[in-house]
């Protein structure tokens, strides 16, 4: 077993972790599992399994083998492997915590190590889609339970007593009649000689017995290292003999360098080589953009060398991309009939016969992740092998992409995962790791770290898709909404992987459009054509952001039109508690976040409950100071139900602050409520950034922003400083759903609904800026 040591500064030289594990193995202390189990066995009806998930459909599926995930050393230290990337959600702590709790470990004696990319061994590692807990709570419980039962069995054999007389308890096994006990370290060797219990023989703890799961009493494992500067991110990697590189990339996607001054760059002291990286024609997946790399003895020399290159570019087919012009084209598409994606009743007849028809349009520009850690990767490629150190959300995918690029077998590629200084979807795309691999190969095996600057990050991203939404509602003479037509126009992220589909794909449609839960008899959801002119990428909660913005704004607009309370009207639009099943009325497939419908249907009872909870906690209807307003919005995303009530305060100069946010979240069973709260707090800040500031624009194919001066994000004190998270309590039998993303979509519409309540002004074009008058 190999793993990067995240606690060490000299990441390669210090191999204490590896030595520890080797020592453990040599001492026979590794808890062994001998059975080869079918993938996702838990979902196949074993006694441990409580519900099916889509985890088995992901590359690598799930693995719960304690041999893979758990090691016990003679001093009793339990080492648990975490296989998902840590970008701030806490999964690096929460999943091992699940193992440790089921295993009856004392958390103080648990160490966590990060798995390298190897999905055959560890199961799926694609840390994306708010899936880590959702797909791995069950396998990790099984893993911990299996390890616990092996330790109990080992103790029973050692003492020569029946299994029924022993019980694992807080890092030791106790012989109940006599009270004698053996520590886990003492039992490691004997336990390792036993076969793994079968899945059906596993006995899970009852939730009443949990020490850590569901409690929120375990700080993140990296807390001390983060606060002392010892935590290692990809930008921090240092490998002996390593060179530093920056890349001049084409300013327009699809462009190519035609001329550059390598000699001038080589004259900068410290520069060692200039290398051209080829561009890959679209669809390029995550292939590097190409360009000219400058490799040097330190980052500063590489940066200065890059300035000297004076690259001339052939801009290629996207050179005319102008986001202002593009917006007009999208609007035109949104105003005419589009492709029908879901159809119920007779929308045309209902609108024709409606007593009143209301239409509104909503626009959200491109956005960018702007992770605080710009992308970075180090590679060492030589002798037929490659080793990568990178901040990647998908280490398994990265391993495959590096192997393909270099013409190697995956077995010859090691991808070490550092901590990620933010991810939000950007670091799902491993272009920066591929750049490092190319450059190390060019240097004949010398390790190379590719550093992206902030400008590189903002100008060469995979952007949150621009979108234009047109929503029309028809009201009957009793002011009931009898028709709802929502047209969505947005270039597809699938353009990275296939010829541009020129409209939202099934995956994007399932993110809040064709799963619309409203109780309206005549319903039609359509898409219009939009061609991708840049790299479109998924951004935290993805198309849920524009879809929720349009739908939840429109509901409040209708409430205003009718003089109704927005919360009551929203509940009326949702209708009675029921299961909404769009599978019969969609024209293609309904993508349910890759998970089985039976486990995670669209439950309007849960949707109503978060609306009611957020409203109650926020004191909906309370008397507000002058200039204040409350707005509400709800969205089911990533199989989780979230409603937010945002309070705004609009000053005389039009500037808007957010004194308070109340968010209710129903994500099924919660493993770590403390981290759920932190995700909800952060989602409000990101939502407010989207509402007020974040915008990437293009002119002549080029991104016009470059740093935090012109790509503004929220700073402290600008609002959302008092976010109150209200978790809907759920038992262990309620399937866990996503947490990292679903806090974002309801925020912006709730914010704009609050501005409307405070001022009567409706904002439909994002970003607003800091002022309602701007």
């Amino acid at each position, binding site marked *: 077993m190999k793993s990067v040591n995240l606690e060490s*500064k000299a990441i390669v030289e210090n191999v204490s972790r590896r030595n520890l594990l080797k020592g453990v193995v040599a001492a026979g202390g590794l808890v062994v599992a001998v059975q080869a189990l079918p993938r996702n066995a838990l979902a196949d009806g074993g006694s441990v399994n409580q519900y099916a998930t889509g985890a088995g459909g992901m590359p690598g599926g799930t693995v719960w083998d304690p041999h893979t995930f758990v090691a016990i050393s003679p001093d009793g230290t339990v080492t648990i492997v975490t296989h998902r990337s840590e*970008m*701030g*959600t*806490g999964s690096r702590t929460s999943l091992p915590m699940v193992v440790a709790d089921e295993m009856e470990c004392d958390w103080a004696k648990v160490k966590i190590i990060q798995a390298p990319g190897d999905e055959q061994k560890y199961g799926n590692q694609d840390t994306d889609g708010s899936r880590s807990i959702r797909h791995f709570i069950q396998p990790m419980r099984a893993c911990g339970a299996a390890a616990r039962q092996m330790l109990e069995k080992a103790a029973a054999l050692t003492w020569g007593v029946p299994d029924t007389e022993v019980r694992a308890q807080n890092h030791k096994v106790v012989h109940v009649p006599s009270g004698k006990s053996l520590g886990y370290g003492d039992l490691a060797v004997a336990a390792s000689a036993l076969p793994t219990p079968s899945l059906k023989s596993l006995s899970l703890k009852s939730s009443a017995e949990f020490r850590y799961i569901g409690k929120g009493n375990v*700080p993140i494992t*990296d807390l*001390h290292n*983060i*606060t*002392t*500067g*010892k*935590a290692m*991110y990809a*930008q*921090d990697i*240092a490998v002996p003999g390593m060179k*530093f590189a920056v890349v001049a990339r084409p300013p327009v996607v699809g462009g190519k360098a035609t001329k550059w001054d390598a000699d001038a760059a080589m004259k900068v*002291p*410290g520069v060692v080589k200039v290398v051209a990286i080829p561009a890959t024609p679209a669809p390029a997946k995550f292939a590097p953009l190409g360009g000219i790399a400058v490799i040097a003895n*330190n*980052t*500063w*020399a590489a940066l*200065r060398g890059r300035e000297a290159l004076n690259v001339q570019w052939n801009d290629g087919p996207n050179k005319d991309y102008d986001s202002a012009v593009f917006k007009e084209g999208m609007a035109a598409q949104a105003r005419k009939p589009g492709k029908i994606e879901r159809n119920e009743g007779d929308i045309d007849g209902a609108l024709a016969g409606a007593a009143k028809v209301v239409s509104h349009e909503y626009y959200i520009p491109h956005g960018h*992740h*702007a*992770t*605080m*850690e*710009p992308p970075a990767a180090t590679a060492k490629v030589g002798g037929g092998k490659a080793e990568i150190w990178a901040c990647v959300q998908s280490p398994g995918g990265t391993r495959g992409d590096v192997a393909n690029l270099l013409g190697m077998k995956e077995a010859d590629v090691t991808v070490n995962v550092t*901590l*990620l*200084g*933010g*991810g*939000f979807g950007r670091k799902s795309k491993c272009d920066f790791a591929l750049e490092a691999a190319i450059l190390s190969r060019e240097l004949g095996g010398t390790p190379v770290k590719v*550093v992206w600057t*902030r*400008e590189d990050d903002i100008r060469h991203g995979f952007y949150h898709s621009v979108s234009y939404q047109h929503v029309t509602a028809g009201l009957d003479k009793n002011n009931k909404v009898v028709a709802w037509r929502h047209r969505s126009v947005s270039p597809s992220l699938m353009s990275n992987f296939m010829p541009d589909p020129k409209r939202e794909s099934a995956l994007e449609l399932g993110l809040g459009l064709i799963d619309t839960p409203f109780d309206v008899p005549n319903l039609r959801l359509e898409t219009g054509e939009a061609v991708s002119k840049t790299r479109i990428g998924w951004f935290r909660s993805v198309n849920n952001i524009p879809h929720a913005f349009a739908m939840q704004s429109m509901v409040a607009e209708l409430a205003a039109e009718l003089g109704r309370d927005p919360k009551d009207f929203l509940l009326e639009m949702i209708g009675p508690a029921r299961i909404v099943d769009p599978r019969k009325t969609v024209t293609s497939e309904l993508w349910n976040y890759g998970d089985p419908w039976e486990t995670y249907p669209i439950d309007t009872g849960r949707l109503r409950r978060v609306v009611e909870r957020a409203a109650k906690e926020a004191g909906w209807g309370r008397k507000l100071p002058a200039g204040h307003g409350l707005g509400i919005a709800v969205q089911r995303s990533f199989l989780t139900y979230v409603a937010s009530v945002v309070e705004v305060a609009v000053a005389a100069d039009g500037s808007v602050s957010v004194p308070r946010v109340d968010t209710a979240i129903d994500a099924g069973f919660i493993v770590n409520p*403390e981290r759920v709260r*932190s995700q909800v*707090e*952060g*989602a*409000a*800040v*990101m939502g407010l950034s989207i509402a007020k500031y974040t915008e990437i624009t293009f002119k002549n194919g080029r991104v016009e922003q470059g*740093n*935090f*001066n012109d790509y503004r*994000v*929220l*700073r*402290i*004190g600008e609002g*959302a*400083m008092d*976010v109150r998270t209200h978790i809907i309590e759920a038992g262990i039998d309620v399937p866990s759903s996503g947490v990292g993303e679903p806090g974002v979509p309801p925020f912006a519409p709730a914010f704009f609904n609050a501005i409307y309540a405070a001022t009567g002004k409706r904002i439909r074009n994002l970003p607003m800026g800091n002022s309602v008058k701007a």
Partner: protein
Amino acid sequence: MQLKVNKQDRKFEGDPQMPLLWFLRDELALTGTKFGCGVGLCGACTVHVDGKAVRACATSMSDVAGHAVTTIEGLSPDGNHPVQKAWRAHNVPQCGYCQPGQIMQGAALLNEKAKPSDEEIQSTMSGNICRCGCYQRIFAAVKAASKEA
């Protein structure tokens, strides 16, 4: 040129225009000082020079010749500066990348003014961006540390 970094004497003989950030990160392997923007807009690289908070990315080596630099690694011998302790008590970090800079900024503030007002905390910390959005807890931690001071 000579300078002190975390109380140790250090020599530098390269480009005097090189930002302190790259000396700390690339030459001394003090990577707790993070690279976030390179132009003094995000605060991830905040260190102390003679006790005052500065952005290492926008401070050239010639500016710090003869001065004393403190990085997150040198803030406290055992990592228990009141701001660090408050950070842990409030479970502030998410991804953690901006946090050393935030902590160094908070520590410099409390060094200058033991009991800053809420407005002073927010205005002083407003140069430090956190994209995860930990601001509510950052504020609470700085305030809690100020009460301890």
